[in-house]
């Protein structure tokens, strides 16, 4: 019996092996969506806990990584919904970030304001749009991968991305115009 079959039968050793094999991959995926290391670690554990409870429903012929990613996406979306309901945290993962582009370093007050505006615009998006926007616009994840993780079609990903982009563009109009490609 192979590892995935043993897991499907509820063997804890097999679960531990799969956990160790896939924890990094699941963590990276969640991190791309929630952009908060502490939360991503907790959500990784929550993902595997849900996977362990659902072991009997796992088809050993399927890829464990893909299945875990689907669960991780749902866990991350639940987290984004909760975060949206509860409002911004003092250590907001978007607001606290340093600019990726060294050339963007300038007036700290202006940069802080810019980041806060982006953070607010992102927080204002519905969690489903927020996840797609973070994955597609910032992390450059291919639409096909996003579609698989969310359990929707590539067309639906494009629609969500279009809606998120339209909202973000509306909220960040001046910013986009001043930072556009030269």
């Amino acid at each position, binding site marked *: 019996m192979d590892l995935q079959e043993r897991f499907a039968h509820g063997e804890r050793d097999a679960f531990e092996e799969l*956990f160790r094999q896939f*924890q990094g991959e699941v963590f990276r995926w969640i*991190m791309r969506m929630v952009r908060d290391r502490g939360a991503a670690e907790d959500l990784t554990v929550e993902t595997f806990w849900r996977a362990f409870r659902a072991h009997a429903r796992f088809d050993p012929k399927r890829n464990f990584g893909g299945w875990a990613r689907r669960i991780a996406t749902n866990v991350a979306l639940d987290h984004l919904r909760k975060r949206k309901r509860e409002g911004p945290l003092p250590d907001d993962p978007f607001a606290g970030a340093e600019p990726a582009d060294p050339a963007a370093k300038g007036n700290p007050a202006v940069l802080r304001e810019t*980041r806060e505006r982006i953070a607010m615009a992102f927080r204002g998006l519905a969690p489903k749009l927020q996840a797609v926007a973070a994955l597609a616009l*910032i992390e450059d994840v291919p639409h096909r991968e996003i579609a698989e993780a969310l359990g929707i079609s590539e067309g639906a990903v494009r629609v969500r991305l279009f809606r998120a982009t339209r909202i973000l563009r509306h909220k*960040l109009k001046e*910013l*986009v115009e001043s930072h556009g490609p030269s």
Partner: protein
Amino acid sequence: MDRVEEQKLRESLKKQMPPADAELWRDLWPAMLRRMERQERAGVPWFDWALLALVGAGLLLAPQVIPMLLYHL
């Protein structure tokens, strides 16, 4: 909105937001074990007991449904 505008937005977002530093720095298995142990200690959730009590009370109040339930089981 056209692709140029989407690209503009993408670039201005990336200028201000760093890529997620997504490497896992520690093994999460100990945390996973703690999570599993916590759940085992918690035992049967309260709502399962509540449901059991409700069914028990229902059977006491209407014992005539017991043969019917047994037939369907």
